[in-house]
């Protein structure tokens, strides 16, 4: 990977599948963390960020997890470290 910033989900380019390397659970509330896991967002899983924001702001982020598409906020995506899919 090139720059260090690139390995944060919040900065990841759209349309490219990546693997979740690490999630900083302390950066979010317990409820938020549980909901992320309920969406299937866990260490080791593959996600593809697809849509980011609107004319108003770069929030939120839509990504696919498996066959499901979910919406999260940029602040949560910033707590998710990613690595390229092998």
């Amino acid at each position, binding site marked *: 990977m090139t720059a260090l910033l690139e390995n944060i989900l919040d900065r990841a380019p759209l349309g490219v599948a990546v693997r979740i390397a690490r999630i900083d659970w302390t950066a979010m509330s317990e409820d938020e963390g*549980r909901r*992320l896991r309920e*969406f299937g967002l866990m260490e080791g899983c593959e996600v593809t960020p697809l*849509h980011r924001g609107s004319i108003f702001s770069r929030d939120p982020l839509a990504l696919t997890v*498996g066959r499901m598409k979910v919406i999260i906020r940029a602040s949560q995506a910033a707590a998710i470290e990613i690595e390229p899919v092998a």
Partner: protein
Amino acid sequence: MTGAIPSIALVGNPNAGKSSLFNALTGARQKIANYPGVTVERKAGHASFADGRPISLIDLPGAYSLTPASLDEAVTRDVILGRQDGEKRPDALIVVLDAANLDNHLSFALELLALNLPTVVALNMVDLATRDGLTLDAARLSKELGVPVVPTVAVRKRGLTELLAAVDGAIGSHAAGGVTAPAEANDASLHQRARTIARAAILSETPVRRWTQRVDNIVLHPVAGMLILLALMFVMFQAVYAWAGPPADALEGLVGVLQGWVVDNIPQNFLRDLVVEGLLAGVGAVVVFLPQILILFLFILLLEASGYMTRAAFLMDGLMGKVGLSGRGFIPLLSSFACAVPGIMATRAIPDEKDRLTTILIAPLMTCSARLPVYALIIAAFIPNRGVGGTGIGLQGLVLFGLYLAGIVGALVVAWALRRTVAKGTNAGFMMEMPRYQMPQLRDIALGLWQRAWIFLRRAGTIIAMTTVVLWLLLTFPQAPEGESQVEYSVAGRIASGLEVVVKPIGFNHDIALALIPAMAAREVAVSAMATANAIDADGDEDAMAQSLGERLQGKWSLATALAFLAWFVFAPQCISTIAITRRETNGWKWPMFMVGYLFLLAYAAAGITYWTAVAFGLG
């Protein structure tokens, strides 16, 4: 299980197609009420096994697990565990899974299976899974889970008989062991198991080029998506106007025929006047707006059922985030365009407390359908029915759009202010699953429309009829002496004269002052109140009777007054039900009182500014 009718709960993740399955199983035999003490909607209905034995079904709010993140999900947990007041623990569960989303939905299913209740799994929307290139092995899934698994397509009524037969079998063969307390499962290991089982049940997975992704690329595009959303909203409000004309005229004609029939067949007496001038004039004036309300609900139901609503929430999240709300609030707020009461109830899905409170407080600023009768009457009477600059866009529809927009902008400003003062807190999160696109089902939409129509007509038959009758009595007594206006002379007229002093500076006349008080019961009563007053005023005068209410107002009001009246209704908290629901949802009188206070202030200021500006431009 002898004697009592078995009760079966449908439970599953949001977007698993639970409600469609519930509709398919119960048809129109369902009842929407509230759980006692909480305002979460309780949907219950009846069905029967193949041999005719009746069963009762309840549709529980969608949840991701037995650990609730919102008030909705807490109800689901409490009902299943038998902890919900006034609700007996279900005798069996139908766990509804989205076939295309097994790996995620199985976690909750596993948690539910651990409870040891008679359970059947409905592998729902198998047709959509096939569309996505997925082949599933239901028998294998059943073996892994240890309970019957029935593939269903709720919208085509496929698999329903088999599903109920499996439920019957599960109840019959279940050893009475009682409900097991929910296991304190480590959720990571639960999700891991869910994924392993899902992988075993998926026979093949062919990647198909999904047209839905191409649609999302446009619909969720930062600029194009926003334009589409705006266009959709605009079409919706134009349609409310353009399509409702003929059916509304027909209803109006019907009311006229009824009035004529009563006048021709019943001798002149107190009761006849009450029926003709009170009930028929008042209730009739409100019922004619049924077509418009149904068109608005039709759009909302279609947007919801197609899966577009969550896309709209995605687009709006950025804007709503700027004022301290989240995209979650978009759905309650859009529902508030139909009625603030279900809108405020829908805020229960918002996890953040301050975010939720702010959304509740601004919900009445969304133009609810009860305001439509008022807007429609005034716009039809005062705004010329012509196109704007040779385009196909009607001026009347444009004014209506502007009124809706004024409410939205007002709401954003108020939310911004509230989040910096009384509802201060960290910026709320926004996490939501995006449902797949689906063709809305005629039956589900028709059922939803029927329920809304029924609620509206029941209101017209009770609250509105009652306030209209009371108002008629107050308008009729005491009898005015010869040569004096009955409306001015009556009890109601004198109260209105008192109120007129307060509202005169903002351009309101006696008619409006008279309409404002009963309109607290329900906004649309403002229309029926004016209709009743005018019917009494016109008593015996054939020409005046023949004029419509709009035509009569045209003769009496200035344009400035009419515009001020419209501006008032954008903000005024004119509805007791909204105040009551806010009290219940915020557990006390503090917030509803705050809401009423700030809304009245805004309404007074807005009407005043509108009136003075209009007068300055010579429209007084």
